């Protein structure tokens, strides 16, 4: 890996610049849009269509089944009529054998005729329900019984017949009548049982379908919930993460493109916007800080300019009045004052320069000293004494010099505003394991307890309208968080406030490690 590559990748890992984030957002957006489309709307529609078709099928089959039961009931009635008419015939037959009246035989024949009509008519509908044997049997016996009755009706008068040994015919009629009666009753009972069994089966099927339906519905509901709630939960996580200042884009998690993919694309473009706004905010905070420092800067520039002007004028007025040594000293004064003025300008330009924040080993003593220089005039004007107590041998911090300077400057200005009667700002350092802790203590008015937990919130300010934007500390917090550190605050009303900045110690492998990760 060339040195240049290493540098570039290093940038991307540590502080995602808006450009690299924008690139990765574009790539993710492409990935999100290119997956096969299977929208949630489509899936819900499918699920409901299937559920509807299922219910529809159940309803239709119920209707068919019930109508079939109805038809069978009608057929059963016909079979009932068949049995009734056979019974009637037998009653007439019995009367004939008891009393010998010919009319009874004709009545019996008429009943059998009705029975036969019933059997060949509607009662045929029962045929699929009962065994074929019994059906043909009944048919045959009905024919036989009818034939025997006809035979008797043609025979001579009963009285002679009885004596003529017609006992044989009578017995045959009786037997045939009994048989047809028995088998017809069997047929009817069989059909009854069959219909009852059908009704029972229908009931069992209905219960089974209810259970099946329940299972299917539960499955569809849980599956839908899983497919919608799970990504919703994920997106809540993303929103929280982004809200906390982690501007990594949302990456694809599913095989298909659905409404959540569109949401992911929208969130990513929001992240891009937020990132841009965040950088604008940082820059505007810097400019605002510079605005606060205007009087100090003017003073810092006008003093050396005045010195240069006075010294030059002195030399111009009467070079010959001074010895060579004196003249040289004046020229040296001018030179030093020019350095002083350009140093101020350079410091200011460095501070306001808009550049990508990279991590570097930062000497805390150095950054505190340069920040103190920026507020030097504010301090002297407000009679605030400053003291840099950072240990000389302290390891370097993994941070960004200019951003850290911005944070310190903001804290110093806050401290100065909290000490209108003057006071002091002390900066101390502690090494705590892998962390460097920097305490910035002032002797100002302190922060009220109720405000203490809100001071890092954006737009929270206790300054009067127009004096503070309420963004300084929240921006500071964001900057330190981006460096992997944190800020804590302790304050005693009337005693002063101590801000503690925790930063990770710079390790040699920080550079290697970041390069390897790529």
């Amino acid at each position: 890996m060339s040195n240049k590559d290493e540098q570039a990748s290093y940038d991307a890992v540590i502080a995602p610049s808006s450009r690299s984030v924008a690139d990765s957002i574009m790539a993710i957006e492409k990935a999100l849009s290119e997956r096969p489309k299977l929208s949630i709307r489509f899936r819900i529609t499918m699920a409901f269509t299937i559920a509807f078709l299922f219910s529809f099928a159940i309803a239709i089959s119920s209707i068919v089944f019930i109508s079939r039961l109805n038809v069978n009931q009608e057929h059963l009635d016909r079979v009932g009529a068949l049995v009734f008419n056979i019974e009637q015939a037998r009653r007439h037959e019995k009367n004939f054998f008891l009393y010998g009246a010919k009319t009874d035989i004709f009545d019996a024949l008429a009943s059998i005729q009705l029975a036969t009509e019933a059997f060949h008519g509607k009662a045929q509908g029962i045929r699929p329900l009962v065994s074929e044997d019994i059906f043909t049997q009944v048919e045959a016996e009905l024919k036989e019984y009818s034939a025997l009755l006809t035979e008797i009706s043609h025979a001579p008068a009963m009285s002679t017949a009885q004596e003529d040994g017609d006992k044989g015919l009578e017995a045959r009629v009786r037997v045939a009548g009994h048989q047809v009666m028995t088998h017809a009753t069997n047929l009817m009972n069989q059909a009854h049982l069959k219909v009852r069994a059908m009704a029972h089966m229908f009931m069992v099927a209905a219960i089974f379908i209810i259970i099946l339906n329940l299972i299917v519905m539960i499955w569809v509901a849980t599956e839908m919930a899983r497919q919608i709630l799970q990504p919703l939960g994920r997106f809540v996580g993303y929103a929280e993460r982004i809200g906390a200042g982690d501007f990594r884009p949302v990456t694809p998690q599913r095989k298909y493109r659905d409404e959540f993919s569109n949401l992911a694309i929208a969130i990513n473009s929001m992240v891009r916007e937020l990132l841009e706004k965040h950088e604008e905010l940082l820059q505007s905070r810097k400019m605002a800080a510079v605005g606060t420092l205007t009087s100090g800067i003017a003073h810092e520039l006008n003093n050396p300019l005045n010195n240069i002007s006075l010294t030059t004028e002195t030399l111009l007025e009467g070079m010959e009045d001074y010895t060579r040594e004196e003249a040289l000293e004046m020229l040296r004064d001018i030179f030093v004052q020019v350095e002083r003025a350009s140093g101020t300008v350079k410091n200011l330009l460095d501070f306001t320069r808009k550049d990508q924040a990279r991590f570097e080993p930062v000497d805390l003593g150095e950054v505190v000293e340069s920040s103190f220089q920026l507020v030097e005039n504010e301090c002297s004007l407000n009679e605030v004494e400053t003291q840099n107590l950072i240990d000389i041998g302290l390891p370097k911090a993994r941070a960004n010099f200019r951003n850290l300077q911005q944070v310190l400057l903001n804290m110093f200005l806050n401290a100065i505003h909290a000490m209108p009667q003057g006071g002091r700002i002390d900066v101390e350092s502690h090494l705590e394991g892998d962390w460097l802790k920097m305490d910035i203590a002032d002797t100002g008015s302190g922060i009220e307890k109720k405000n203490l937990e809100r001071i890092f919130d954006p737009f929270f300010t206790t300054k009067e309208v127009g004096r503070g934007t309420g963004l300084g500390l929240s921006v500071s917090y964001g900057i330190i968080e981006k460096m992997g550190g944190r800020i804590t605050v302790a304050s005693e009303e009337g005693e002063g406030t101590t801000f503690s900045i925790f930063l990770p110690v710079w390790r040699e492998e920080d550079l290697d490690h970041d390069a390897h990760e790529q």
Partner: protein
Amino acid sequence: MEQKPLRILILDDEPIVCKRLQPALEKNGYEVEIFTSSMEAVQRFRKAQFDIVVTDLKMKELDGLQFLTEVKDSSPNTEVIVITGFATMETAKESFRKGGFDFLSKPFKIGEMLEVIKRAEAKVRQRQAESPSREG
């Protein structure tokens, strides 16, 4: 009769201002004392009489306006000229309200300073002429 030279006190925490103004003013016949610390200047002022005071505004310890008040309280006839690296209307008004003679913003020319001092001198001389009894 040759007039007694006026005594001028210069206070600025920028040593170069003092170093350049002192010879320039002495060349014009003034007695000049220079200070870069306001506390030392206050102590000296309490002991000695000065006709004109030139003071910077922004300084550690006592600032220019406080020194102006101090001077005017103990010696109302002393004229005070205020110089500053960053002039605003507020500071200018404030210094006039407290009795400052004039207000000069940095960077200024030695000639400008001389001209202001000449005007202050005229005022001091006039006052001395009006009440000669005060003269020692």
